[in-house]
Structures are given as C-alpha cells and as structure tokens.
C-alpha cells in the first residue's frame, strides 16, 4: 500500500509542474517536493495531539505565583481576580537554573487542577512559558515604538487562533502546521486510514496541502445517516450504492463515486475500529472530563487500535489529532467560568495520560495545549480582556516533565516566566497587561515536529519563520 501514496504525490508534482497550475498559497510546491523526495521510514508509532482552547485561556490564572516577587505583583495587578495561595497545587519544578520558572518565584496550578499538578510533579507534564505569535523576537521598545514586524490582527480571536494553528497564516489560513506535518509523513502511512483527524470541528490546523483532515464527532466518525427504509430490506441503500459503484463513463463522475465510496468506507472503518474486539474500556479515566475528555478518549482508542493490529487499522506510524474546547473567553464572571473549565481540562489531560499508561502507550503520544491568546494581566470588573502571550501545557510519557520551558529575548533557550509587575514597570507588558511573547509558536511547534522525527530542513519548510529565532527546539519532549 505504501508506494501508492508516494506515487500519488509525485504525480501531483509532475502534473503541477507540467501544466499551467503553479498556484500555491504557501510555497506548497516545496512542501510537496519534500514529501516526494523524503521517504520517512519510521519504525515506531507516534501521535501528536493538539488540545485547542478556543476563546483565549487566562493562563495567568491557571499557573499562579505562590511566593516571591511574582506573587506580590500578581496581587497588585489583579485585585479582582487574584487567586488565594490556599488551594493552589504547588509545582515542584527546580527553584533555579534549567527547568525553573526563571524568576525566582514559585508557582502552583489553579485549585481546580490537582490531577494535572500531580502529573507535572510525576515528570509527565511540562509548562512552556509565555509563548505566543511572533514573526521574530520583539521587545517592548520595538513594539511600543511601532518598529516591530508583528503578526496581523493581534488580539483578534479568529486571526490569532489562525496564527497559532498556521504559523503563520499569511492572511490566508489555508493550511495549518498540523496539516503540513501530515503532508510530509503521509507516505509513511497506509493511504486509506486518516492520519490527520479533528474531533472538534474543521479548522486551519487540520488542513494540509495534500492531506485533508478527517473531521469526526467527539465520539466517532460523521456517518451517512441513511434514510429510514419502509420496506425494511435496505433496497434504497442498495440503489444508492449501485449509483456510486465503479463503472461511470465520465472521469469526474468516477472520481466523485470514488470519493463517496471512500467516505463511506472511512466512516465504516473508523466505526469498526472504535468498536474493535479487545478495545479496552477507557471510560473510567475520563469521568468528569467534559467534551475535551470525550474527544481525548476517542483519540486514545484510535492510538490503541493503531498499536494492536486492529484489522484495517494497522501499519500506521504517525498520526496528528485535533481536539478542541470552548468557552475560555472570560470577559466576565471569570472565576466561576474558568474554574469549571479547568476542572475538565485537568481531568481530561491527566485521564489521557493515565489511559495510555494503562495500555503501555504513554510514550507514543504527546498532547499539547494551545489557545487564541493569553489574557490581559490587568483585569476588568470580574474578567479579563484579550491578551497576547500565554503559558501552555505539554503532556505525555515522552515529555521531560516537572519543568518550565521557553525562550527569552536573549535567545538562550531558558524559561522565563514574565514579570507580572504593573504595566509601566514591566518589560514584558506591551500595554494594558498584554504580555509580549518571549517564546514563539514556531519554536513550540518545531519542538513537537522534532519529536515527530522530521528533518531539520523539513521543519524549516513547515515553519518558515523559525529561522528568525536563535533557539530552534525547546527540549521539552
């Protein structure tokens, strides 16, 4: 089966080069050429799982200072939102040096997140500090002086979500970096099994140049819901199938018939896979984990299936999943709203790890969070506004956990939790408490792509702005 997809990609290139069609939104020609040239002969299975938190999670109230200067400033700048130290779950990262928050302060997770804090302290989760959309390293002076080259439409939900997923969107969020990774590794996988799958809707992350993401419901594939058959003998279905069976005279009709059959076959395969004999029951790991938990449970099932010779679902070496949750745009009533969301997020991420651990697959999958943007340090009456940089979690057996990671403007690749001082005294604050990222989405993505065992040159193709940063890989996985 494998040569087929490589052949397809090569033919695509030949056709594109030979014909009039050299359109590309994104330098996609290079990407396709790389895919055809590079034969990734992976001997192992790995899955990347993006957990996207729509709305812009307030990470400054997710990872909270317990002591030190950060605590003092935190209480100063967030009079209405500051969480008390009692109830926070301490993060036992190194106090100084590599893996520390970098600012001498100590931090804990939100009171709603005991499971994730425990996972962190057990070395299976890490924090990437103050990461966000950047074209290149940007200082407060450059930003406020107007000389910085900036991502378009900072603080806009749709644009910044697109930036996080596309890196960069180039005003045309046609492909995401998840999709572009899938383009490159497609040849290492059977052609008929989705390797780029969204369980939380269509978005840029799951669009590649040649690989189109398969969009499923949180519990399984979108299936054709064939009409009720009054005759009870599936004759309508048989007629439907007959019309899509091979044999059309017209090339476009044949292609559409193939696509329809493939759609039905894919949905059928995934349904069968999720219900495969021997599929462990993972429900217990996701109790109270909400919609993200439901999606992650389905991902766990598919990862299990890919590693247990489930008929029709074997031979996979790389998969990319997209899981989403919403409601994080907490302009008001933040304490109650975010608290509820974080309960589910904590249970979902820790459940994901525990479920995979139970079947000895924890080191095969890395889950990471992303969000539109962080929120403003300054608060309004009972909420926060759109910000820029944020902190994110990475979870999995391959993660070098119990540490803070990131870059800083000096490009030394050390974590640096941003100052939480009031705006005019804060070198990280671009204004209004909107924190300037010190680590770029590209560095975050590149680290994950590196774990996926893509070559350095291919990673540069996927992330064209990566070269603007001194540190390519952050080392968290």
């Amino acid at each position, binding site marked *: 089966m494998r040569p087929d997809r490589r052949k397809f990609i090569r033919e695509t290139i030949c056709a594109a080069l030979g014909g*009039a069609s050299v359109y590309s939104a994104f330098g996609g020609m290079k990407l396709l050429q790389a895919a055809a040239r590079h034969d990734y002969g992976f001997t192992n299975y790995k899955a990347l799982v993006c957990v996207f938190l729509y709305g812009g999670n307030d990470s400054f109230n997710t990872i909270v200072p317990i002591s030190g200067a950060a605590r003092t400033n935190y209480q100063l700048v967030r009079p209405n939102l500051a969480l008390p130290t009692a109830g926070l779950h301490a993060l036992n990262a190194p106090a100084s040096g590599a893996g520390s928050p970098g600012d001498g302060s100590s931090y804990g997770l939100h009171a709603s997140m005991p499971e994730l804090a425990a996972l962190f302290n057990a070395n299976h989760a890490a924090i990437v500090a103050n990461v966000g959309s950047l074209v290149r390293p940007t200082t407060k002076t450059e930003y406020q002086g107007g000389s910085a080259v900036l991502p378009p439409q900072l603080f806009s939900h749709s644009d910044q979500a697109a930036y996080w997923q596309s890196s960069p969107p180039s005003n045309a969020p046609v492909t995401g970096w998840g999709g572009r990774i899938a383009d490159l590794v497609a040849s290492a996988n059977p052609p008929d099994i989705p390797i780029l799958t969204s369980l939380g809707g269509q978005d840029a992350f799951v669009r590649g140049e040649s690989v189109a993401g398969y969009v499923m419901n949180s519990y399984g594939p*979108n299936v054709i819901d064939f009409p009720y058959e009054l005759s009870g003998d599936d004759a309508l279905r048989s007629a439907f199938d007959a019309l899509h069976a091979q044999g059309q005279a017209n090339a476009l009709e044949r292609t559409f018939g193939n*696509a329809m059959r493939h759609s039905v076959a*894919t949905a059928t395969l995934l349904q069968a896979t999720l219900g495969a004999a021997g599929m462990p029951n993972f429900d217990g790991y996701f109790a109270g984990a909400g919609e993200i938990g439901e999606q992650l449970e389905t991902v766990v099932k598919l990862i299990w299936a890919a590693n247990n010779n489930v008929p029709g679902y074997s031979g996979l070496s790389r998969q990319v999943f997209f899981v989403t949750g919403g409601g994080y745009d907490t302009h008001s009533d933040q304490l109650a709203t975010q608290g509820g969301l974080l309960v589910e997020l904590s249970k979902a991420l820790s459940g994901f790890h525990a479920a995979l651990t139970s079947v000895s697959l924890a080191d095969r999958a890395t889950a990471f969070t992303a969000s539109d943007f962080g929120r403003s340090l300054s608060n309004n009456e009972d909420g926060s506004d759109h910000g820029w940089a944020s902190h994110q979690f990475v979870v999995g057996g391959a993660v070098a956990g119990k540490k803070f990671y990131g870059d800083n403007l000096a490009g030394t690749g050390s974590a640096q939790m941003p100052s939480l001082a009031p705006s005019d005294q804060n070198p990280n604050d671009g204004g209004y408490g909107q924190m300037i990222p010190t680590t770029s989405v590209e560095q975050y993505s590149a680290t994950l792509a590196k774990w996926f065992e893509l070559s350095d040159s291919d990673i540069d193709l996927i992330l064209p702005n990566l070269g603007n940063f001194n540190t390519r890989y952050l080392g968290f996985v």
Partner: protein
Amino acid sequence: MTVSRNVRRLLCLAVMLVCAASGASALAQSHRPDAMLHDGFDGAAAGPANDADASRFLAQATFGPTDADIAHLRAVGYQAWLNEQFAAPQSLEMTYLDWVGDTLHEQVGHQNRREAWFLGALGGPDPANNALIHSDQLRQRIAFALSEILVVSDQNAQLAEFPTSIAYYYDILVANAFGNYRTLLEKVTLSPAMGTYLNMRGNQRADPSRNIHPDENYAREINQLFSVGLVMLKADGTPQLDGGGHPIPTYSQATISAFAHVFTGWNWYDCDDNGFDNFTDCGPDYTTGENWLHPMVPYDQPNQPNNGDPSYHDNGTGPNDLHSKQLLAYPGAQAGGVLADGGSAASDLQFALDNIYGHPNVGPFIAKQLIQRLVTSNPSPAYVKRVADVFNANRASPNQLRAVAQAILLDPEARYGQAYSDKYGKLREPLLALTHFWRAMDARHTCGRDFTQGGLQNHYANQPYRYAGYVTGWGTDDDQYGSGIAQAPMNAFSVFNFFKPSYLPPGEMTTNGLVGPEFQLQTESVIANTVNSVEGRAFYFDVAQVCDAGDDFGEVKVNHAKDLALAGSGNGGAADPADRLVDAYSKRFMSGQMSPFMRQTLLAYLNRIDSSWTEGVTDWRLWRIHTALYLVFNSPEYMVQK
C-alpha cells in the same frame, strides 16, 4: 431554418435507431447518456432543440433550471433569452438590507446578507414588493462566479462585523457582471471591503524611521489571482514555455514590491468627517457603517483636509520612495510599464490598473476561470481562446463581460462538448446544488414569527421570500444546511476561495492532469454531511408541515407534492411505474442526461413502491418523490454537471 431543423431531427432519429439496433443489451447497462447528436448544423446559437438542451443551458447560465424556465427558453430560444437577461433589472443586496434596516427596523446582520444573496440566486418575488419579480439569473450567476475569483470573505474578522461591507462589494460584482473588466477591477480595488481584506486601505509609503514598508498583500493578489496569474500564457490559456520547457514567470518579487508602493495613500472616504486628521487612526464607522459604502479616496494632496500630515502616497518623489516603478513589462505596455515619478495617488492607480489590464494574460486567465465556473473544469485551449478573443475584442467596450458571457454559453463546446468527451463537465458546487433543488422544487420560506431580539422587532412571520432557513442553520451544529454543505456565499477560507482553479483531485484525474476545483470542498467528512443534508431536503422541509411555534426564523421548504401526478396515476408497483417521474427529474435536474443504467436503477427501486406505503406520508407517491430526489441528488451523474 425550418428545413435544417427537420434534417437534424431525422439524423437524430437515425442515430438512435442505429444505436438501438446495434446493441440493445449493452444499452441497458450503459453509464453514458443516450447520444443527442446536435452538432451544430444551425450553429450553436440556434435552439434549444429540446427540453433537455434547454435544461442543460440553464444549468450553466442560472442557479438551476425549473420547468417553467425550460419552457420559456424553448419558446424564445437562446439569443432572445440572453437578451432578456442582459436587460433584466439588477437585484442588489443593499436594496434588501436597506429594507430590513430602514423599513423593518431590524438589526442588519450577516444572516440578512445571506438572505439577500438567496433572494438574488433563487429569484422570484421581492419580499418588500411581491409584484416585483427578481429574474436576473444570468447576472447573478456571473456575479457569483466573479465572487470566486475576486474573493473577499466574511471569515475576515473586520468584515464579519459589518455585513453591509460585503453586500456593497457583492453589488459591485452584480452591477458590473455584464460590464467592463477594467472598470470592475477599479471598483473592486477601491472598495473598502477589498481594501480591508487585502490591506490596501491605510497602506502607506515607506518610512524607515518607523520601520514601515508598503504592504504587498493587495499588490500580490491582484496580479496572481485577479488578472494575470503567475506564468505567461498563450492566447489559449496554456503556459508559454522557455527554451528549457519551463513556464515563464509573469512578474518578479520586484514587480510586486513596485505595485505595493503604488497602492499607497488610500483610506476611508470620510477620514476627516469622522473627526480624525490622522490617516493611520482613521477607522470604520461603528455607528452607521456608512463608510463601508463608499469607494476609498486618496490622501496625498496638500489641499486635502488632512493637510499637515505627511502624504501617505509614494509617488516617487519622497526621500524613501521607489523611483520609476517598473510594473508589468510586456509588448505594448504603456511606457514599458514604467510609472513616471510625480503623479498623484489617483493617477498612479490609473496607470497601474491600465498596466495590469493591458497585459495579454488577462483575457485567457479570466476567460478560462469563467468557463470553469459555468461550464466545464477542463475546457479545450481552443474554447478558452475563442472566449479570450471576445474578451480582447471588447476591451474598450462597456459591455465586455456581456459579450464574454454570451461567448462562453453559445460556444460549440458549451453546447455540444459533452457528446464528445468523457472528461467534460464540472462538479456542482454545494451551493449551486442547493439553489437548484430549491428553485426547481418551488422553495418558500415558511413558519418563523415576529419576535423581539436585542430590543428590536424581527419580522419573519408570513414572509415567503425571506430565505431565512439556510441562515439559521449556518454556523451551528445543524447538518441540514450550512455546515452540512461546507459553503456559504462570501464565506471562503481565504482569498484562494473555497477551492483553487488548479486543484487536482486524487486518483485518475491527477494522473491525467484533469483539474476538478470543486472537488477540493468534498472531503470525506463533508461528503457524509452533504448526503445527510440532501436527506433533509428530499424527505423533510416540506411546505405542508405544521410549523413549530417556537421557531423564530422559520425554514426554507419545498413543495414535494407538486410532482404527485408524475409519480403515479394508479396504485403504484410495477403496474403503475415511475417512468414519468424519473424522466421528469432527468430533464429538470440532469439535463436529460440520466444514463440508461441510472434510469434502470432508479426504476427498479421506485417501482417497488405502491399504495401500501402510507407510513409517515399523506400520499404514497411522496415516497417515490422523496427517494427519487435522494438518489438523484447524491448521484455522481447529477453531481457532475456536463
């Protein structure tokens, strides 16, 4: 005329007899429509010779044939029909939105703009004045095609805030659908929607002290997507090759940069009226949205009200300006494509647009894409050249695109090409399949109510021509419409539209170099949603249904029962076969091109249905109608318009 028609009929009859005699059993299994050999004794413009030809023409020229339109076209002929369409009054979205806002006093939102789009696409009575009939189908179809070349989208965050920005833009396309492409290009360039979408609005001359460079976004896309494309084309749209067999680039990065410097100094028409005197702080009018409804204006003259600010236009005379900008260079280009220093923003823009429009690529580049949108994905180079020639012969005409539309539709390849190629046709776009279904099945808005939202009254009760049903489904989890079919008007992912004109579907089409742009939308998961969406329309959403009292907006519903007489005249079963229904649907939906195989497959199923099938319906024949629609609309033979 009469004589030659008779000759053709005799010939057709002879061909059919030969086919029938030569292999009746093979014919029974054929997936190819019966040959209808009209090969142009009368010229392509004569006709239509039969209902199937009329239906086929209307599939290309309208938002879907109806029985009434087929009859009308047969009565008047192609040319008279085209002339009627050229003269038909324009349906403009702003007219509808003004009615919604000014007369109904509703908050105008994007759902209203989509209602306006459907009003134009579906045609029929105007909701504000039922005596006014919208019938400008060809104009609307061309405008829709143009909207997929000159793309703006409400997925852009700022445009999403101002529905009228896109309505005003769409009306430019509608108003100029039969006009001149140079004129259209200028109106598009200066529209605030495009200015916002591709960043020409507020674009300013270089200022190294503030690290400002002219934005290249519009400069790039107007060349790459709206006019000349990336590679030099022959007159027939195929690429010119250099000595090494490689395509020749149309322009370089330096060219794009030069255009970016030209497209500087433009902003909202009312920057000063808003109380701003600063070009860079000028913003949209959040109170009325009025400044979205006026072309952008230049801010580069000392006598303009922003006097005192620096000029924002690079005319080649400033210390950081680009001198003697080299735009597109091609034989015959004015001044070799070099823009002399010292112009104004307005005069420089004229030079740049003339420079682009004058390029020999524009004719074949635009001709091919319009053919793809209306007729076939892979037109022959000769067809492209014939249409491009018309484009070029009418370069100075205010009716240029009218001539182009006629050339596309009356070309022999448009009228007869399907008979000679098994690669002919195009996959129907989801939206066009939807409008086809609704038009052909007498869609009406039903249910809905007058309700208060945000302190404003909404009026959806007794409004058969406010097509709100699509709107309420879009963007929700409702698979029946919107998200189910993955396409909404002016909602493309990006400036690269819902699909690229060069998209190669996987499989044999890629192997054979056949593009299928619309296939790019039909991902495996979207196909499943689309089939489910067809089920909803085929089986449910009927005007006879009782309304849900809690349904604010109502739904678009069709009249399935109008086909009862076709579906059977006795008690069904094999003794009362469904031939007339299948043949009527072949004509209405498939231009009479249903293959013998498909016809046999449908009849084998439909003839099982008899008068004992009463569950869930008021008349057993509705089972035949529902299932026939379901099978037809999901079939490859329907989905490929050919």
